[in-house]
């Protein structure tokens, strides 16, 4: 009887450890939502900063107005303000009720803007993985309102 109990216990332990090992190896993909709200001077990404993990998907849900989600990247005629290993992105024109998905692959800080409203400070930031500090990204030719938002609303993480 004792022997049977011992075998059962060992079997349970093996099964349990296998289950936990599988959980540890699983790459959980999370979906984070950023709302795109307002028009003109009230245009904004909510929240303005999101924390994600590499592999996560961000869905941008447009509530009103016409907007884009565009990376600070030379492909979009802007200085590079995303990780060097990451590819550029640009949603194209989005209108109310549109949803656009962005998959974040690399660790680091991704700054992005809305093409029609960048001059009004319509920018956002993605922190991917373990970010210890904000890189010393270039600021040349970035509108004052956009820089102000980066410096005041996106620095706490």
């Amino acid at each position, binding site marked *: 009887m004792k022997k049977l109990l011992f075998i059962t216990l060992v079997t349970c332990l093996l099964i349990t450890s296998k289950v936990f090992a599988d959980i540890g190896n699983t790459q959980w993909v999370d979906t984070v939502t950023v709302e795109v709200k307002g028009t003109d001077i009230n245009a904004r990404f909510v929240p303005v900063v999101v924390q994600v993990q590499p592999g996560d998907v961000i869905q941008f849900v447009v509530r009103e107005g016409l907007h*884009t989600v565009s990376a600070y990247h030379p492909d979009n005629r802007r200085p590079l303000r995303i990780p060097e290993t990451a590819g550029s992105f640009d949603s*194209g*024109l989005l209108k109310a009720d549109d949803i656009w998905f962005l998959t974040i692959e690399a660790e680091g800080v991704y700054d992005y803007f809305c*093409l*029609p409203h960048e*001059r009004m400070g319509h920018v956002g930031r993605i922190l991917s993985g373990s970010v210890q500090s904000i890189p010393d990204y270039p600021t040349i030719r970035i*509108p004052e309102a956009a820089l102000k938002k980066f410096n005041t609303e996106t620095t706490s993480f």
Partner: protein
Amino acid sequence: MKTLPFILLTLACAMSLNAQHLHNGDNTLSAGKVNSEHSIYHLDAQWTDHQGDTYSLRNFSGEPVIVVMFYGNCTQVCPILIKDAWQLYSSIEKSIRDSVNVLAVTFDTKNDTPEVLRDYAEYEQLNIPNWHFMTSESANVRSLAMMLGVQYTKKSDGHFAHTNLVTVLDKQGRIAKRIEGLNQPMEKTAEEIKSIMANGMQQ
């Protein structure tokens, strides 16, 4: 009393016509018809670009030209329209790109002075050779818009409703291609510009 139904009918017709031209909410007008046999280089007017240089449109004859009409204070589609023009320009084979001029012509002749246009070009990082952000007298802008089939109207809030159109002119200043709408694929049009360069007599 008999005039009331007439007034209501007239109002209904006017609203119906207006509804036919306004799309995507309130700011987009459909492109008008054009005669592709006419050269815009027949327009005899002086234009000033963001560098303060003055031009007649016929100064650009002999090479393909990309024309886009916009205004600097636009907070909706114009930045995307300018991006589309840049997308087309950058899709042109490098070896011939230097022979193609881009004319970005403002509707807003009141606010978009050459100095404002220079700032705009700097901001858009398009203060580069062959790109001309241009203004002229209102009547000249209207004439050009009519020849290109670009419709625009100033609204009470100071913004413009307008057609979203990128136009390619052949070497003689005739309309060779029109791309209406935003975020359109540009590769085929870039090839057509190459063909214009090669043939010289593209219709």
